[in-house]
Every structure is written in structure tokens, then in C-alpha cells.
């Protein structure tokens, strides 16, 4: 379609230079090691809904049955709270599979690249709040 072709030409350049990606509050790659990916399966002990980033405390059981507490860093909780998420949305004891990267200092900390529930669903996905976008005003 002619209109489509014109649009394509006009917009392509603009697309390349559109708004910058979301900026992080701090450098995660300085805190966690890209060369040390980890998968942790555990149960939720506590979720600190704090800023600038939330922390999930999970108990990970080793083959001998010993449980170790790991701290997993996630995102700011503010938008989730606007979406109606509360501390009770994820019950204590919920089993979580965390796919992430280990802390550089060797402590029991990791960043949670993905938080997955036992049924394979990812935590919190699909939410949106407010009148997203809406008409031009």
C-alpha cells in the first residue's frame, strides 16, 4: 500500500533514535557475575517490598536436607503496588524457581533474572495499570 510505504520511509529513522531504554538505578553487572549463572529452587521465606529494589528471601534445600537462606534482588515494588500486588500476593512458603546470576563477593545472594512458579508461570506477568497511553490530549 502506498501509504504504508511512505510511512515506512518516514518513520524508520525516527524508530532508531526513539526514547532511550529504561535506566537502572544501579549497575547490576558490578554486583553480580555474568559468568556465574545460577538456578535456585526454594521456598519464599520473606519478600522485602522495599526501594530502590525489592529482595526475596528464599530457603534452598541441599541434597542433605540442610536449608540455606538466599537473598534474591528484584525490581522496585512501586509499580506492582499500583497494579494491586501486595505482600500477600505471593504467600510465604510458595515454591519459586529463580534463574539468575550469583553475587561477585561469593555470598548467598543473586539477582533474579526470572522468577517462576511451580506451574511454570512467571510471577506478576501481564499486568498494567491506569489508562495506558490513551488518546492524545
Amino acid at each position, binding site marked *: 500500500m502506498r501509504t504504508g510505504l511512505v510511512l515506512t520511509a518516514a518513520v524508520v529513522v525516527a524508530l532508531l533514535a526513539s*526514547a532511550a531504554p*529504561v535506566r537502572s538505578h544501579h549497575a547490576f553487572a558490578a554486583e553480580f557475575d555474568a559468568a556465574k549463572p545460577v538456578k535456585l529452587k526454594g521456598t519464599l521465606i520473606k519478600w522485602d517490598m522495599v*526501594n530502590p529494589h525489592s529482595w526475596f528471601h528464599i530457603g534452598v534445600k541441599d541434597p542433605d536436607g540442610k536449608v540455606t537462606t538466599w537473598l534474591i*534482588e528484584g*525490581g522496585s515494588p512501586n509499580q506492582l503496588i499500583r497494579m494491586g500486588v501486595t505482600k500477600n500476593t505471593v504467600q510465604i512458603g510458595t515454591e519459586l524457581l529463580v534463574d539468575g546470576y550469583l553475587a561477585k563477593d561469593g555470598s548467598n545472594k543473586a539477582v533474579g533474572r526470572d522468577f517462576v512458579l511451580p506451574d511454570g508461570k512467571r510471577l*506478576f506477568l501481564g499486568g498494567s495499570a*491506569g489508562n495506558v*497511553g490513551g488518546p492524545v490530549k
Partner: protein
Amino acid sequence: MRHLRIVAAGLVALACAVPAVILGQSAAPARSAAAGATSAVSKPYAVPRTADGQPDLQGFWTNSTYVPLERPANVNKEFYTPEEALAVEKRAAERESEQTEPGTVADVHYDFTQFGLDRSQSTFARSLRTSLIVDPPDGKIPSLTAEGQKRAADRAAARKAMGGQYDAVENMPIGSRCIVMAGAGPPMMNAGYNANYQIVQAPGVVMILTEMIHDVRIIPLDGRAAPPQGMRQWTGVSRGRWEGTTLVVETTNFNGKNPFRGGSEAMKVTERFTRISPDRIQYRFTVEDSSTWTKPWTAEMRMAKTNGPIFEFACHESNYGIANILAGARADEKRAAETAAKKGSN
């Protein structure tokens, strides 16, 4: 680390929005059809008033947007058509939802989408503007003066002399240290996420709370004298007044430690807040700093009404990332020293 599911959801939302945008344009009077036009809408909007008679700006607002501050290269018009604007938004939303490559530095992060932090997941003020900057007309920040260039070079040299970014906490970005977000302003630039504000008015005063990192400006409207030169603050010192239904806020006395776009302590920011509809504030700001830029420049954006409350951003209290990063840097150094020692002994 992004996910196709969200991309799909975003596309549906954008597709649904197309008729709304087109309707919004065609239904509006000709003069206001260009979204973000500098004038108020042709049809007078009766701005609500507070109990003491001020135009009422109170509530929760966001300036989240996909419109960049400066006009992209090779775009030479002030406004996109609605179709073009949607295509730009769509591409930007897709970029936000893109997957990063496992094992790369970029992948070492939580997923913004999982925490609802993509712009496409929350309220933003849709606009046809190709840049927030409206003056100069080319949509670009004016050139730096010779003094501005020298200052930028001096600052870079001073920063370099401090050592590596993770050598000491003082070397880390002030936003990471929870002191003030780089774009908290004034002028209030949209944060990458949580780009929200709360405005509260009382007789003779306006309060603006910035969500990201948590900054509060208490703006007196009583015509008090300008602050003394020696009184310097991270977010400057603001004085406000009403011009008709527009709140005009002039801010000076920055401390120069959080330079906006390379500005100096002498920068003056004039903001103009005008409520143009129940759910939009027109926000314009002009930056004047003759020691930095060859001329003043002005930008304009919409603030869209959003939902609150704003959850506390007690940033220092739980900023464990700082200690973890410094511990990580020391661990890296230790490993490097051990490796070097091993090589030396071989």
C-alpha cells in the same frame, strides 16, 4: 530480558489505541489537534479551584513518555502523524520487551517487565511530538559555549582523577547513592520507570513530590525575596507565582553537583504548569544558562493523571546494592591479585 508475551500484549494495547488517537485528533479543534501544541485548547477549560481559590493541580501525575528530549536525526518536523507516532511507540515498546542474551552483562538484571516497569505497562501521556524541545525549532539543545565545553572537559578530568567507579562510594553515580535522581529536576525529566509525581497545595504554597528516589520541593507563592547566593541545594531553590491559571516556578541556586545536561550553578529553570483538562497538565520549562549554552531552550510535555498513592521510596534505607557492588569490586580485585601472584610464582 524480555518476553514475547508482553510484546504481544503491548501490540494489542497499541492497536486498540489507534482509533482513540485518530478520534482524539479529529474531534479536537484545529489548533489543538497538534498534540502538545504550545497554546491551550481552543475551547476554554474551566480549571477547578482549591478551597482558597488557587487553580487546582493536585493529585498524582506522570510525565512518562516515549518522546525523546531531542528530535531524532533526520526527522525534520515537529509532529508525527498519529500513525507514525504509534509506529514509534510500538518499536520503543518492543525494544523494552526484547530478550537479552544469557551470559552477557546486559542480561545480569531483573526483568523490568516482570516488575511492571516497562513504560508500556503503565500510564503515559501519548503525544505526536517528535521531541520535547520546542525551542529552538530544530528540537535540539543549543550548542555549548566555549566555557560550557571547558567545564565539561574539566568535570570529566576531575572525575577521572577520582579513580574507578567502584573504588569508593563517592565515585558512584549520585542516583545509585540515593542522593537525587539525575533527572529529578527541576526541570522534571521523566525517569525510566516510576516517573510519577504528587502535587499538594495549601494556602501560599505548592508541594511537588518526585517518586524516584524521593525528592520534595516546597514552593512558596508569597513573593518572598530571592534566596541568598550562598544558599545552594541539589534541586535548587524554587519560588512560585500564578499567572492566570498557570503556575510559574523559577528555580535558581543549584549546587552544581547534579548538573543538568552540563549546566552550571548559574542555571535558571522556569517551569510553567497549566491544567488543560481533567487529566492533563501542560508542563513547559525553559533553561537559561548563558555560561553553558549559546541560547536558552524550552521543552514541553504533558503530565497525565495517574493512580496513587505513591509508595514510599525510602532509598537509603534499603540500598543494599551499594555495599554489594563495593564488596563485588573488592572480590574482583582480590581474584585479580591472586591470579597475578600465581603467574609471578610460575
